[in-house]
């Protein structure tokens, strides 16, 4: 019997470490060490209900497990074979308890390629990766294929870059392979800076070897002997696991000199990012690797010609690399049979926001937004109405109700005014103000703009200021017009991908929710009731019983009134924190 305990960042934050310790002591106390294995795994994806414990072989899926539950699981499930009912997942649609993970709506529509080993193997043990066909792909490539043949397989598979742009991976490798140089570099972009996205982190935490193996394959193809992983310093767990993985791979001769006796040398080192979103852009990333400010430069020259230290450099994203070994083993035809005409394979999304099943999912390209949100995601939290899903983070746009049945792939998302991006998908409900969301993303861009080119540095700041005036109720119709025009100029004239896409959240919310902008500008109202300056808290005298709960909890003493008499909020003092609404048991306070 195997007990798999999630060791991803989310579950660790809810004490999965001590759950593992408890299981080990409990199992040892019962003398079952030889029959039951406790394994720390990568992310299961179902972060909403973490920490997760999965029992194999019967595939039981326990959610929100606490250290105090461990003894019961061991005594009941492990020893007596009786499932602990109270910890099983409850299907929100019919309130039924589900004992076998494969019947969960969350997993039913998923196909796991990049995440194939996450939540299955112990990421800190290379043997477990090898047992799941790990390092077989590099063996096959070194033995059976020339670099050109390998590139051909990747090209035929139709794999496109998962970092956002969607550039064909095989073509990228081919270009880098054709540029002759004494040294070339393979770089893995693990600078996942998109707020609300955690795909790459989960892959690195759950299956680091698959990335190492793919980088070696890439090195063989383009003629590089040096690989570098550029990873955010904010991901300490992923860094630790990568270090362990690199050390183990070197010990097994899977990295280093003369890999598998083939004469091919390849080794990997780590470089740390230091918190700059723009470093996800490949030229910025390369400058940052060189110890400089992470500012972008004009392309051409492309990194494939002149990249890290002026040498030809191939940069791919974590998820792209993670898909490579499987493609080699299962073949280009298998991979290209999944997905849509121009977007092959699967895509990992980090599903977050106002959705029931927050987590990490991997679906075939072409899955509709409806399937993602309502089947896999389990619908909107608290039975609210779906309003929009933001994809592509600060560079993307929002998809609305009318896009629910559009198959999700690279090209359809662009046609819908958004983009794939790295795979963050934030779901919003009727309570979210779309003007504020646009402002939120602009605030992010303003902070993260590197300042090198004027359109991005100055233009985005102006966009933010206009949005701020609109949400404060000071916007005018001319400013709405200026907002759109300026957005288009910034898109056309910025130097790098950051500036070229930063106005997307503005344009996309203006296209889809223009009425909300008009309400802010003309009626000075925020339809979602989010913009503080446009709302007023008032006590409904008929409903107020004078219990004084609101007055006692008001942090600024803005509420007055005698006991058992209707109270009054002084709007001049009120900071609109909402504490009174939360404390009122009689629904006597409303926002006007």
């Amino acid at each position, binding site marked *: 019997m195997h007990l798999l305990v999630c060791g991803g960042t989310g579950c660790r934050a809810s004490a999965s470490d001590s759950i593992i310790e408890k299981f080990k002591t409990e199992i040892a106390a019962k003398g079952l060490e030889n029959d039951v294995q406790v394994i720390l795994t990568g992310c299961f994806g179902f972060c909403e209900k973490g920490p997760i414990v999965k029992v194999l072989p019967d595939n039981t899926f326990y959610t929100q497990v606490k250290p105090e539950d461990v003894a019961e699981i061991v005594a009941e499930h492990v020893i007596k074979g009786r499932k602990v009912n109270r910890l099983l997942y409850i299907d929100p649609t019919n309130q039924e308890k589900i004992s076998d993970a494969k019947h969960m709506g969350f997993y039913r529509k998923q196909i796991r390629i990049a995440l194939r080993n996450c939540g299955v193997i112990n990421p800190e043990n290379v043997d477990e990766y090898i047992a799941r066909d790990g390092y077989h792909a590099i063996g096959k490539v070194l033995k059976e294929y020339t670099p050109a043949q390998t590139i051909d397989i990747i090209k035929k598979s139709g794999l496109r870059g998962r970092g956002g742009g969607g550039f064909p991976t095989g073509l990228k490798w081919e270009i880098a392979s054709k540029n002759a140089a004494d040294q070339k570099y393979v770089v893995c972009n693990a600078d996942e800076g998109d707020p*609300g996205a955690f795909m790459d982190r989960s892959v690195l935490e759950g299956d680091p070897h698959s990335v190492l193996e793919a980088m070696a394959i890439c090195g063989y193809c383009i003629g590089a002997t040096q690989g570098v992983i550029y990873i955010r310093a904010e991901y300490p767990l992923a860094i630790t696991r990568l270090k362990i993985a690199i050390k183990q791979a070197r010990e097994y001769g899977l990295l280093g000199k003369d890999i598998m006796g083939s004469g091919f040398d390849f080794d990997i080192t780590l470089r740390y990012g230091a918190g700059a979103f723009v470093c996800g852009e490949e030229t910025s990333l390369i400058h940052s690797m060189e110890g400089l400010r992470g500012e972008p430069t004009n392309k051409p020259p492309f990194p494939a010609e002149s990249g890290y230290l002026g040498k030809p450099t191939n940069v791919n994203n974590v998820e792209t690399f993670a898909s490579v070994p499987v493609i080699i083993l299962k073949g280009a035809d298998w991979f290209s049979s999944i997905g849509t005409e121009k977007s092959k394979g699967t895509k990992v999304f980090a599903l*977050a926001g106002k959705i029931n099943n927050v987590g990490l999912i991997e679906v075939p390209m072409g899955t509709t937004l409806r399937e993602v949100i309502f089947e896999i995601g389990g619908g909107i939290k608290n039975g609210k109405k779906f309003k929009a899903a933001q994809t592509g983070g600060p560079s993307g746009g929002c998809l609305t109700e009318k896009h629910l049945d559009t198959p999700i792939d690279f090209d359809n998302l662009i046609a819908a005014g958004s983009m794939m991006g790295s795979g963050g998908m934030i779901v919003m409900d009727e309570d979210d103000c779309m003007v504020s969301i646009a402002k939120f993303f602009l605030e992010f861009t303003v902070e993260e703009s590197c300042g090198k080119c004027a359109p991005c540095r100055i233009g985005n700041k102006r966009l933010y200021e206009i949005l701020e005036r609109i949400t404060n109720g000071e916007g005018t119709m001319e400013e709405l017009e200026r907002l759109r025009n300026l957005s288009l100029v910034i898109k056309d004239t910025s130097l790098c991908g950051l500036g070229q896409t930063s106005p997307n959240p503005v344009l996309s919310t203006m296209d889809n929710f223009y009425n909300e902008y008009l309400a802010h500008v003309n009626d000075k109202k925020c339809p979602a009731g989010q913009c503080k300056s446009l709302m007023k808290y008032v006590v409904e005298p008929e409903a107020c019983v004078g219990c004084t709960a609101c007055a006692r909890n008001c942090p600024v003493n803005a509420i007055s009134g005698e006991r058992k008499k209707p109270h009054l909020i002084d709007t001049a003092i009120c900071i609109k924190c909402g504490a009174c609404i939360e404390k009122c048991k009689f629904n006597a306070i409303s926002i006007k």
Partner: protein
Amino acid sequence: MSHIKVELKQEQVAKLKEICKSFDNEAGELINVLHKTQETFGYLPAEVQEVIARELNISVAKVYGVVTFYSFFTMIPKGKHPISICTGTACYVRGAEKVLDEFKRILDVKVGETSPDGKFSLSCLRCVGACGLAPVVSVGEKIYGRVSPDGVKDILKEYE
């Protein structure tokens, strides 16, 4: 920028030199050197940057340029208990702003500042990747999930 003058002790300078040496005094390793230094000293005051510049044989301006470019590096000492509020998108739509406001109100500091007694410093960060627990607050190494404005008092109480 901070104007606090820092006198580096001899052993601190020696430690800095040792860090630079461990990266072969290579200018290209500047970011790694800064990471290691901040880990050791807690922050990167101007005086520390001067030593690093000398050791790596680059200008102080270049070091300063890199320190100020990346949000991970700080020139102001952090509080004893550094508080970070995640303001990634997932936390934002689940109410991180209200939580942040409550911290600001109770501690009476702005984002990026340290309380006068040096106990707490307040900062925002973008996504720790624990979106299932949104909104997320971290105090030192400890992560608090599903924090509500009401819960802020209780978190701070743990560190009194």
